[in-house]
């Protein structure tokens, strides 16, 4: 087990930077999820930790010990690959025994460890089979089993459940999280699925275009995104963005739009006026921070026309047309609006966000 630190880490392919000046501290025993869309540099980051990719500049340290120049085999990490990377010519048992065998463990120790890991993952009846005789979920368990037979410094999981079907994925999310808690080993988990990152990680590192956007707990990242990009990437359904004007009315800042004019709270007013002199900014509201009704609740509500309603079992998503954009609202299934009708939405002003139109930085 080890603490992992990234200090000014850069990765360049030719002149193309894939990872730019990355700084992360990942405490011993914690679960760090690196989240971002494809091409954001998250896999490069993980491969640099594993030693499969050269670190262009900067340092990666395990317990304050630089590992830049160590070969993969000397870093003592265990990795689970996106495509499982099982050895097709070896049985499940041999696959799982491989890391131990390569480290010269006794056959009896190997047998004990592999059996224990197989039991933990409930694949002990599959040990004699070959990888091609397994289902996707079973292969994935074997790949995890191969990682946990040792007690490595660090687990590296590279989108390990991306290829499973939705139901199994939901199941495995819980299992992997439980496994990490049980073993107490530091884990770096790369994913493009914000739901996986939110539900499993202690800390999320959101990456975009090779840059670390935000490092924080799932709550922080969800409730206080540092910029519009993070706000838009995290959360499903995604946050609504509306371009609004900023106007002073009777000493209170209002966000104005053709369809509405809503006052901000005092704290928010302070932040906006401190932050910029912009007369327009981008308002961000999550679908669940809006409440919708068919009757007008107050003067400071948003008026729109229902475009479509989507029933999602327990919830309902309503798409509402404003004059220049479309926003989505999460509501209960009792909502009785029909397409084309006028509706009214109230914003929970404790839960909304404002971003600069210039650089996307969050005011609040």
């Amino acid at each position, binding site marked *: 087990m080890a603490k992992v630190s990234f200090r000014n880490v850069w990765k360049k392919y030719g002149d193309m930077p894939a990872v730019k000046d990355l700084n992360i501290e990942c405490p011993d025993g914690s679960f760090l999820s690196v989240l971002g869309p494809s091409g954001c540099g998250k896999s490069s980051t993980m491969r640099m930790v*594993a*030693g*499969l990719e050269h670190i262009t500049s900067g340092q990666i340290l395990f317990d304050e010990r630089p590992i830049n120049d160590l*070969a*993969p*085999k000397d*870093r003592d*990490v*265990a*990795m689970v*690959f*996106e*495509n*499982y*990377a*099982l*050895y*097709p*010519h070896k049985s499940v048992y041999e696959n799982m025994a*491989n*890391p131990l065998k*390569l*480290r010269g463990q006794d056959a009896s120790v190997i047998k004990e460890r592999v059996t224990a890991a197989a039991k933990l993952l409930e694949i002990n009846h599959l040990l004699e089979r070959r*990888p*091609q005789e397994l289902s996707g979920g079973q*292969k994935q368990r074997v790949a995890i089993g*191969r990682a946990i037979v040792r007690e490595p410094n660090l687990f*590296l999981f590279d989108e390990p459940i991306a290829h499973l079907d939705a139901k199994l994925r939901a199941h495995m999310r819980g299992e992997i999280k439980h496994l990490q808690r049980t073993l107490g080993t530091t884990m770096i988990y790369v994913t493009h699925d914000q739901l996986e990152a939110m539900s499993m990680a202690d800390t999320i590192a959101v990456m975009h275009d090779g840059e670390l956007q935000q490092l924080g707990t799932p709550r922080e990242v969800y409730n206080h995104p540092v910029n519009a990009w993070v706000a838009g990437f995290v959360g499903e359904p995604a946050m609504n963005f509306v371009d609004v004007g900023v106007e002073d009315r009777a000493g209170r800042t209002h966000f104005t739009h053709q369809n509405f004019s809503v006052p901000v709270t005092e704290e928010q007013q302070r932040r906006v006026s401190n932050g910029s002199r912009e007369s327009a900014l981008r308002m961000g509201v999550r679908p669940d921070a809006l409440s919708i009704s068919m009757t007008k609740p107050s003067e400071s509500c948003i008026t729109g026309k229902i475009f*479509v309603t989507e029933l999602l079992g327990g919830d309902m998503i309503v798409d509402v047309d404003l004059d220049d954009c479309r926003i989505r609202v999460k509501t209960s299934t009792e909502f009785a609006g*029909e*397409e*084309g009708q006028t509706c009214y939405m109230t914003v929970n002003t404790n839960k909304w966000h404002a971003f600069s139109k210039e650089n996307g930085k969050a005011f609040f």
Partner: protein
Amino acid sequence: MTDATMPKTSGAARKTSGNGRNLDLFRVRHIPDSVESRPVPMSVTEPTSLNKPVSKSFYFWLMAPAILVLAFISIYPFFWMIYMSLHDVDIGHVEWNNFANFIKLPSDSRFLMGWVLLAEYSAMCLTLQIIIGVFLALALNGTRLEKVLVTTLLMPMMMAPLVAGMVWYFLYNGTFGWYHWLLQSLGILGAKSILASANTAMIGLVLVDVWQWTPLITLITLAGLKRVPQDQLEANMVDGASPFRNFVSVTLPNLYPVLLIAIMLRFMDNFRFIDSILVLTGGGPGNATKILPVYLFEVSFKFFKLGRGAAIALILLIVTIILGKILVRVFDRQQPSKV
């Protein structure tokens, strides 16, 4: 084989009868009138084939010329060989001889020696070619000059074996051969030329074969290396394997199938191609390089014992087929299917 199920041309008109009548069943929400409801094809007529159906026998007649030619150049000689192997064959004289051709073979020392020499020759060629070929492929794989170097390497393979034999004949020549001069200057070679000495003639022949055919192994191995899964190599590295260990436990198993194909091709060629040997030594000195196919050639076309030659050829053919079958079986067992 000659099935008439060709992909039907899909130029036929789709029927666009029926408008959104059935669609209404699935319509749960109101679609504004501005959204155009497109007519949906309710049924698609089977496109009519442009080809009129023809009987199977028609196809047979189409193939008949090819079959006829094949019969003349391949099937007929094969049966004629079997026929000859059971007879005493001379010009204008064929006589049944109660399997004498076969019965005499076990006591023919040159026939037996031919097998030993063939095995020796083939084993040496294959071992050297595989080792050098694989090493070359590993060295070339992924380098910037890979394409250029592979093209250069392939040149010997493009050469007719007879021409290659001639080139090496000159290189080995005892009076003006460059290799001969080089080796003699270095004191490795005695007074005799390479091909004239019973000790070195076989090695000389093996070198020619290695020179000419190692590129093939390199080419095949390179193709094999391209399909070694990168993630397995990486997984093994993270698991704690050294580069050598990684090669043995991941690369090699993935190379097995292509290497077996290469081995099969080359061993069959060793059994068949004797052009360069005929040019270089003709089986000599003495009988030092008289591998079985050379002996077969000699019996048939120098001594004109066509019956005996046919018997030897038949046995050689059977052995080749059996060895080939064994290799294919091994290949099937080793073939790792994809994950």
